[in-house]
């Protein structure tokens, strides 16, 4: 797992083609399930990998164990 180190640039403009939004706490995977990302701060932009939109991974719900 990688730690986020650099704060995101505030200068960038949102590309309307990538404005579906990204939700805090959701995991995003690419179509072939090679890359998985966790959104730690939500925003209007959306994620792509190799030009293809990443989708929300549906995690299997586990019972609370603590």
């Amino acid at each position, binding site marked *: 797992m990688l730690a986020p180190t650099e704060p995101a640039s505030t200068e960038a403009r949102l590309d309307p083609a990538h404005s579906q939004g990204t939700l805090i706490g959701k995991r995003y995977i690419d179509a072939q399930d090679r890359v998985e990302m966790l959104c*730690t701060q939500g925003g209007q932009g959306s994620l792509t990998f190799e030009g293809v939109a990443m989708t929300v991974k549906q995690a299997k719900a586990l019972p609370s164990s*603590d």
Partner: protein
Amino acid sequence: MLLDMAAEAFPNRIALTSGSASLTYRELQTAAHRAAERIRACGCRHAALLDTNSLAVPVLLFGAAYAAVPYVPLSYRLTGRELEELLDRLIPATLVTTAEYVGALRIPAGIEAVERGDFLANVSTVEPVHHTGEYPDPTSPAIQLFTSGTTGKPKAAILRHQNALSYILGSVEFGSAAETEATLIAVPPYHVAGIAAVLSSTYAGRRMVMLPAFDAVQWLRTCAAEHITHAFVVPTMLARIIDQLGGEEVTLSALRSIAYGGGRMPRTVIERALRLLPAVDFTNAYGLTETSSTICLLAPGEHRAALDSQDPDVRRRLGSVGKPLPGIELQVRDGAGRELGPDEPGVIFVRGGQVAGEYRDTGSMLDVEGWFCTRDYGWLDREGYVYLDGRADDIIVRGGENISPGEIEAVLLAHPAVSDAVAAGMPSEEWGEAVGAAVVMKEGTAVCAAELQQWVRERLRSSRVPELILFRERLPYNEMGKVLRCNVRAELSAAVCDMR
């Protein structure tokens, strides 16, 4: 990171309650940043806690993470001398505590002791705190927990940020709790389950209610008063809660989920609990300090199916710890390290991101392929359910507390009339396992069990006092001169059965 996400997504939700005091997620985040500033300012290398559950527990846990020093909760059940030895190993450190626990202690130079009340007063502020936006290095130590080793000298288990995160991200869905949900944290802060409860509740967005010290009546009353929906208990706590259920006029209508672990659950206790609380989901969680808490679970549906089934294979699952979490691989191996098949007992090995398997003094205990030996003995059934059958070594697990027989034996042997002694676990309805002992007296001496029990009580904690002492002519040894503890354990078990 976990707290930052919670504070971002639901800043005004109540994060925790202790008595009449509460903090929102935003307030908890601010207080943790303030605590981090204090830790950095004093140049401490550890953020230690010697206290019962209170608001200070999550504040210091997250504050230590922001300051990039390990959080080190200490057991208030230790004797003064044991604590002084541990404090010596933590210099330089800040220690959040109360007079009740440090009043009689010699605090070594380099340990800055802070009263809990002063600590909380100093960190609660409405002034904005400068956020650096940085996270600690994921490979740096997040938590250091002292566990009782086989020799009796506590080992410092290290959990790195990446281990704890791997467990939380792998087992909890972010923000999955409704605002009305509340979890009752009744395990002590120095137990890995207490730490896991803080982390997973924060990530789920579930309000934490801190219970300072467990007592069945207080637990039930707090459940009712705070509309508790979730709780974690060790088997001993559950046994006391269900004993109390009949006598207490309380409503547990909000309670939906009880998770349990930390020791062997007697079948009679869990069966009674399932019948007395038909609307509650029970989850058995098996884990170790070294694995960042839970590695296997037996889900609520599997409990109910086992209770009602006529199939003996399904019925016996109530005695299983369930199946490994998705992020955990588990193997049972024989003494030569070969992987065993279904129903063949051996030692349990695990591998996964949450498995830390590391001690401060000895370094990583993982093998080259990343496997960790749990030292738990057990087997897998054909469906992949994990069954445990005691420790591979002889640690006595009494009510979730690990007790090394060695220290009890040393004290017994120090008695002028004792020539030989062995301590071992024996089955207990109340504790899962209790301490028993067999002793040989010197010729011409006579002492009763009560006198030896008093002797131990004066020198060790009360949990170390053998509940049953057998007097023998000699103790069983093998030809290598090693005492056959398993034989003593069998004799103790037989004696316990006779007494019932």
